[in-house]
């Protein structure tokens, strides 16, 4: 019989499929006493060891941006697993209460939950989910069950709660949506589900009582609704929504092999930003012109050592090989004091790392570190076209110093018998306003430019993009940003140097007409939105946009810029 189960929408998207119910890890464990206390304590600790191993293995399986996002949650779970209070409490329950490890877990969990549920702060209150997940894993390990969820492609997982690392895994297994009876839209899992585009409904309180394995469900992660045994009108509504989504997907997928060509026949180059092997493979499959920004920080993050030349070389070479002859732009280390604690680098504390020793400044102050990286990049050039991109440039002196070092490294490697490219193009990131303004004074020293709009906007507007209190103060739709972009692009074009935008602005299809009007012909963006941007480009008339550029540059405020954007919508076939 049809049943509507209201919950809270935590991640948009809809799905129709059969339910796979996973009952909670820790359910009603009956009170149980044991006689051999030491054996029971040992059993508990063996289970904890297993869970620690599982968490470590999950962490190893994650790559790139996902590793960073999920890694933080895994760290939290790892700390909970090792929490001295949690462990002491469990040991005490077993030793003094002579309870079984299972029952001790339940008692301890209930004690903690009682305190958490009484908290005023909604965010902290929902951390009981994290504790439940950790305790649930220990419980599963006690029974030698693998706590890792098994998802079945095409099914909808219904459970009490879901851990962030499990979500990443479920999506890889093809699970279409997740419904939880507990949880909140503020949870770490909800944040992650949104970035994975995996539909998620949380807080569907009756889900576990009312849904059985195999029931047919319609899930709408936007409205936060689950329908069991949907009727004709539910199915009709669902079909309409999915048709909409499918049409969009199909339309986009057709563009994989199409050129990024404007209506008036101008080819725009779309490069991909990448940091993992998966990104590179996807960039290749989507027909990207190359990798326009290969971030090298992840090689240094989450490790206690600094990767040596050979390790770096292998990583860079693999990207070059993965792109089969299309160009790969490798950005040298872009780190500052704010992230150094997660690397093997030792950097002094800085009160203001955004304005501190970071990017090329750090590289130039650590000659051996920088030279090692340049050698690894130059060696990779023997396997396909490679370009070197240097972040955080603010003066001619820096550009000249890097160019000289690069030249020397290439000479050394050549005379040592390495096969390397004859010329390795060298470019500067334009992200410090000073570099944008002083560009005519150093453009002769570089081969190409890449505008990092994320930092450029932040520095130009003196607005931290992570500071929610600033609201819309951080926005690329500011006349100062547009004029600066226009100026940089115009100088580069005049001097015959390729110029790309590689910030998030380039990956937002809504900004395509604006960037084209400003004269941009190269974009570098995350593969996830490459097809949307290509579709927008194919709907733009470049000549018409260029003729309206002066109108855009005369806009006096955000509203004026938005009005201009509304006046030039791309024609989407």
């Amino acid at each position, binding site marked *: 019989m049809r049943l509507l189960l209201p919950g809270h929408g935590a991640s948009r998207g809809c799905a129709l499929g059969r339910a796979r119910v996973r009952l909670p890890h820790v359910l009603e464990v009956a009170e149980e006493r044991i006689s051999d206390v030491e054996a029971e304590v040992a059993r508990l600790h063996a289970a904890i060891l297993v869970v620690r191993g599982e968490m470590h293995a999950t962490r190893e399986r994650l790559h790139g941006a996902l590793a960073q996002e999920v890694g933080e949650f895994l760290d939290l779970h790892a*700390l909970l697993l090792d929490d*001295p209070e949690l462990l002491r409490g469990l040991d005490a329950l077993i030793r003094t209460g002579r309870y079984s490890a299972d029952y001790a877990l339940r008692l301890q969990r209930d004690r903690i939950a009682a305190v958490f549920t009484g908290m005023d702060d909604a965010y902290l209150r929902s951390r009981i989910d994290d504790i439940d997940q950790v305790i649930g894993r220990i419980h599963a390990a006690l029974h030698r069950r693998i706590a890792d969820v098994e998802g079945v492609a095409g099914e909808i997982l219904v459970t009490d709660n879901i851990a962030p690392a499990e979500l990443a895994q479920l999506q890889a297994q093809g699970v279409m949506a997740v419904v939880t009876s507990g949880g909140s839209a503020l949870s770490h899992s909800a944040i992650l589900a949104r970035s994975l585009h995996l539909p998620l409904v949380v807080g569907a309180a009756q889900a576990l009582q009312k849904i059985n394995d195999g029931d047919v469900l319609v899930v709408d992660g936007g409205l936060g609704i689950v329908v069991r045994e949907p009727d004709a009108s539910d199915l009709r509504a669902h079909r309409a929504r999915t048709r909409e989504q499918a049409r969009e997907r199909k339309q986009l997928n057709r563009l994989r092999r199409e050129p990024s060509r404007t209506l008036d026949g101008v080819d725009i180059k779309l490069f991909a930003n990448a940091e993992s092997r998966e990104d590179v493979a996807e960039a290749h499959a989507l027909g990207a012109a190359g990798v326009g920004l290969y971030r090298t920080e992840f090689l240094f993050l989450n490790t206690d050592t600094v990767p040596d030349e050979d390790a770096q070389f292998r990583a860079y070479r693999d990207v070059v090989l993965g792109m089969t002859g299309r160009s790969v732009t490798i950005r040298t280390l872009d780190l500052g004091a704010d992230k150094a604690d997660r690397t093997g680098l030792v950097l002094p504390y800085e009160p203001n790392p955004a304005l501190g020793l970071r990017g090329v400044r750090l590289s130039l102050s650590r000659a051996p570190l920088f030279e090692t990286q340049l050698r690894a990049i130059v060696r990779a050039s023997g396997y396909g076209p490679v370009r070197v991109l240097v972040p955080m440039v603010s003066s001619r002196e820096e550009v000249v110093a890097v160019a000289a070092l690069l030249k020397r490294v290439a000479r050394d490697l050549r005379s040592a018998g390495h096969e390397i490219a004859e010329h390795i193009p060298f470019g500067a990131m334009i992200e410090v306003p000073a570099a944008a303004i002083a560009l005519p004074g150093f453009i002769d020293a570089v081969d190409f430019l890449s505008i990092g709009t994320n930092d450029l906007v932040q520095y130009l507007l003196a607005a931290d993009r992570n500071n929610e209190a600033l609201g819309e103060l951080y926005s690329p739709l500011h006349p100062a940003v547009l004029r600066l972009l226009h100026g940089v692009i115009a100088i580069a074009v005049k001097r015959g140097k390729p110029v790309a935008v590689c910030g998030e602005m380039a990956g937002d299809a809504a900004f395509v007409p604006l960037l084209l009007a400003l004269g941009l012909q190269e974009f570098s963006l995350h593969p996830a939105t490459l097809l949307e941007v290509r579709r927008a480009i194919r709907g733009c008339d470049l000549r018409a946009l260029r003729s309206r550029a002066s109108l855009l540059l005369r806009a006096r405020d955000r509203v004026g810029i938005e009005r201009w954007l509304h006046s030039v919508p791309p024609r989407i076939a």
Partner: protein
Amino acid sequence: MIERELLISNRLGLHARATAKLVQVLSGYRCNATLTAKGREVNAKSIMGVMLLAAGIGTPVLLRVDGDDEADAATAVVDLFERRFDEDS
């Protein structure tokens, strides 16, 4: 034993991330460490304990460290509070 009075001045207060940092910093020291706020004292090396304090921005907390390396541990924690748990960067 060393005591230090501290003020939570990061935007999010002692939420999961900040708490994780505090616990990670203290795990490098052998001394015992507690935090007291709103009349409750918890083990500062326990992420659960610290989260249960639910100390938001503006809350005064008292750090107590006791052991061989108490001076270094106190310095490290004070430093972390002064950096506002690196949240603002």
